[in-house]
């Protein structure tokens, strides 16, 4: 029977090593199937996070031959003739084997002011498809955190205290572009959110499994809003004369 050779990282915060496993191939098999085979037949304590195995939940993120991907969506037949290296996400602290501590992302999420509207009670919203579609794109996010993992601000410069990262930019964009939202989050974006740190290399957009245009549709328009609000000289002058109260401020 045809086999795949997997080189899987095994270890924890004290260090680890690559271990080699041979797994019989079945048609259409994905990396996560191979990991399950290893658990059932070789090492029951191989740690992996997964839920749906259908690319809906965003749990099984890992680095496969160096590229951050969902293991449930990565076919083994892509790698015919080469070994398949499976490593944990590099940006987040390692817990064990393929499982990392992604709790920072949830801490950031708590700092984003929620959807806020001023519609009258008891009346269904009237909004048009063309107006919801913009934000719907961002609602596709499955929180796999691959974008956070690949963002060089977070990955190489340990910028977690300075920049919220692409996932959070998508979240903020989803709220800012919700047709009924009334908050203004540009202050947050400029200060704690650190949107200026993104220099638009589009690495995140390139590997989003939901194909969200993270940079083009979320980050750049948000950067424009920040620039508009804080760096437009005419508006700065008008603001100093008559502070706008139309939108509520939030930082």
């Amino acid at each position, binding site marked *: 029977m045809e086999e795949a050779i997997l080189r899987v990282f095994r270890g*924890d915060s004290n260090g680890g090593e690559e271990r080699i496993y041979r797994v019989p191939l*079945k*048609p*259409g*098999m*994905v990396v996560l*199937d191979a990991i399950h085979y290893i*658990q*059932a037949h070789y*090492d*029951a*304590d*191989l*740690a*992996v*996070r*997964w*839920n*749906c*195995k*259908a*690319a*809906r*939940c*965003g*749990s099984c993120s890992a680095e496969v031959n160096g590229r951050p991907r969902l293991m449930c*969506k990565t*076919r083994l037949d892509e790698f015919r003739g080469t070994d398949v290296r499976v490593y944990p996400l590099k940006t987040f602290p390692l*817990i*064990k*084997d393929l*499982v990392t*501590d*992604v*709790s920072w992302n*949830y801490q950031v*999420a*708590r700092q984003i002011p*929620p*959807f806020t*509207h001023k*519609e009258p009670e008891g009346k*269904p*919203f*009237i*909004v*048009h*498809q063309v107006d*919801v579609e913009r*934000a*719907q794109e961002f*609602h*596709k*996010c*499955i*929180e796999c955190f691959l974008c956070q993992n690949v963002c060089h601000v977070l990955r190489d410069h340990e910028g977690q205290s300075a920049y919220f990262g692409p996932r959070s930019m998508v979240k903020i964009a989803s*709220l800012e572009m*919700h047709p009924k*939202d009334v908050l203004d989050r540009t202050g947050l974006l400029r200060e704690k959110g650190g949107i200026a740190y993104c220099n638009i290399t589009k690495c995140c957009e390139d590997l989003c499994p939901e194909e969200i245009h993270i940079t083009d549709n979320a980050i750049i328009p948000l950067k424009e809003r920040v620039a508009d609000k804080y760096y437009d000289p005419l508006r700065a002058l008008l603001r100093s004369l008559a502070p706008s109260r139309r939108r509520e401020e939030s930082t």
Partner: protein
Amino acid sequence: MEQYEIFEHDVLVIGAGGAGLRAAIAAAEAGLTVGLVCKSLLGKAHTVMAEGGIAAALGGVDPQDNWQVHFADTMRGGQFINDWRMAEIHAKEAPERVLELERWGALFDRTPEGKILQRPFGAHTYRRLSHVGDRTGLEMIRTLQDRAIQAGIDVYPEVTTTALLKDGARIAGAFGYRRETGRFILFPAKAVILATGGWGRIWQVTSNSWESTGDGAAMAYEVGADLRDVEMMQVHPTGMVWPPGVRGLLVTEAVRGEGGVLRNSQGERFMLRYDPQKKDLSSRDVVARAINQEVLEGRGSPHGGAFLDVTPLGADRIRQKLPNMYDQYLKLADIDITKVPMEVAPTVHYAMGGLRVEPESGATTVPGLYAAGEVASGLHGANRLGGNSLSDLVVFGKRAGECAATYSRDLPATLQVPRDVVEAEIVRVLAPFERDGNENPFLLHEELQATMQERASIIRTGEGLQKALEKILELKERSRRTRITGSRMYNPGWHMTIDLDCMLTLSEAVVRAAIARRESRGAHYRLDHPNKDPEFGKLNIIARKSRGEMTITTVPVPPMPEELARLFT
């Protein structure tokens, strides 16, 4: 003795899918302290996989729709062994809950007038399912998750609960461990809400995620709660068939809702024969058995299923309304569904049966223990209509949260968690590290799945079920000899020993209940009793732990009041 952390809350919610999140929000908004235990990370629960939509008689696209029609559709779908009061509450309150989601930020697809769009679905009289393409569950869980983190709820991600604890007859909390460290946690709480979902993982071909192992139902059974009608397991007609790695993965009913049709290998639209009126959108049990029958009679697709053709819709519409299905087939099966038909076959999908609850409150038969969502039973009877599960989560999640909060607030006594029970639980859970044995929990699970698939799935017989029961009892015995190596840190093998115990309990209950129901009704089809029996139509089957053994009894289905019964004449 082993140390453990202690976190006390007024209300403890176990399970963080749609029902658990909605319950936690309700209890927190009532002003109580709430703990929310997630088996996985927050926002990853099985609800994210729901695709087609949430059913509610908003009447936005079909103004004739109202709660009575939704109620009647639900009762007919459930073949009248549903709890009528749950079906009534559900039909009346679902529209409010959908509008509430919208006010919390959910963005449903719209009609040309800017209202919430509703799509047709199997056995719903009118277009009734509010949706977001084919990822409605994700929209719902994210909306509720955002609301929950703002409500001051304490979230415990990746914590596995292993037991419910009682003080005398009352619930007093739960016990479990953190997967990251393997360290134990005690959660004292006057009220516990179970929102732990179903148990589809006991079958081989299932659309369910790894979490659906019946933990909540099994823990509740252990402390004396009643399981009702667990023989009723929905087999969804359309799951992926090929390649083997994705067998069982769900193909949403929205494919047929949007106009997709089923054909056999001869190109025949066979549903015209099985249900000339509702055709491809007949109820799920009917469509699943029809596909099964076509395969048995030699008219199946190459990998043992049927063809589901959506190509006439055109590529643009398919990509807009069914983006996940398009992507799923393209990436996982190398099939472009805008050009060629999909291959589909039935897949185990949803537990209609579950904990017996009071319709108004979600209270189980154990004081202080509540249940909502798939783990509870009553709303769906013998067959669930598509879209009714998402509305179930928010309607009954909210009610369970409110009622558990009231119960917790009004309970004067302080409860004690018996120390010896906790210590015995620690010994039980750690046993696989200590004992002699050579059984592999993953392989035992595979044997269980094979048995349930062969003997307790879409077609059942008394004889086959008896054999399944013998096999389950054998596996139970062998599960006491599972042995685990490695540390307690994030150890999936260890976790599987605990899941396996739950799955064996549920399998035994499913099979014993299926033996007891000597008729065919909804999802439960007995080749040796192929017809409906009006006597069984008046009964719910109950599985209960009594003197350490599982016993099966029946209770009468509550009769409908006159004014509701009139809807069916």
